[in-house]
């Protein structure tokens, strides 16, 4: 069991996570302040989005975070084995998220929408696109973690790797939880 009062995984990664969260907070604030200045235009643009895509993606990401947390628990020994399976499930749901997101982008672009359409869609494509990149990177990190855990690896190192990968992944989920309401849900 690990001691409390510390951050899981690589401590330096948390600076990275904090900085990323601040960048997105700045992006969110930028979007929201533009929205406050032109509420009806933004509402019109928002009506072109299909919330179903976003709800499905939220389920994908929240569940994937659950599996990432289970992977961490498995490594800490409170659940029998299965870290590898949990990591695969996490990555798999990440891939499902990407597929759904691409389908959504295709739907939007076919409808004639683009980042140049208006300010709403400029922010929408940039913020969700940046998030998309983070999902890809997160999947890469988890795959790297899975790869590094093959063979004889000491338990502390295994925990460190899985905790680090999971921490980044949870941040990716967290960011999506804000993207969902600000673009899709707010009336």
């Amino acid at each position, binding site marked *: 069991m690990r001691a409390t009062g*510390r951050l899981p995984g690589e401590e330096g990664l948390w600076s990275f996570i904090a900085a990323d969260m*601040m960048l997105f907070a700045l992006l969110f604030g930028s979007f*929201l302040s533009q929205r406050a200045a032109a509420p009806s235009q933004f509402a019109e643009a928002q009506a072109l989005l299909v919330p179903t895509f976003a709800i499905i993606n939220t389920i994908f990401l*929240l569940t994937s975070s659950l599996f990432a947390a289970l992977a961490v628990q498995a490594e800490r020994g409170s659940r029998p084995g299965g870290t590898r399976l949990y990591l695969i499930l996490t990555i798999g749901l990440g891939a499902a998220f990407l597929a759904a997101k691409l389908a959504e982008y295709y739907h939007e672009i076919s409808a004639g929408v683009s980042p140049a359409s208006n300010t709403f869609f400029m922010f929408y494509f940039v913020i969700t696109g940046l998030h998309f990149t983070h999902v890809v990177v997160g999947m890469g990190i988890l795959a790297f973690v899975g790869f590094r855990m093959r063979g004889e690896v000491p338990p502390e190192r295994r925990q460190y790797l899985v905790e680090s990968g999971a921490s980044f992944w949870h941040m990716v989920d*967290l960011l999506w939880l804000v993207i969902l*309401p600000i673009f899709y*849900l*707010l009336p």
Partner: protein
Amino acid sequence: MFTGVSLFTTHTTWLGAGVIYALICSLTYLKCRFVIMIFMEIQEAPAGWRVFFELWMIGVTGMIVFLKFAA
């Protein structure tokens, strides 16, 4: 569960927009709090980090609430 409620709120017409807005903001805050405190284990983290994450959640939720009225 939270997602189900979100889905519900997008399809409800009989609740006033203000109530829906408040509901969405509080649910977002709670969902973020869950991921941060439980999944990211920040409730076990050093105090400085807990403060940072609390401020982030409050700041982001606050922006969603107050920037609605900025115009």
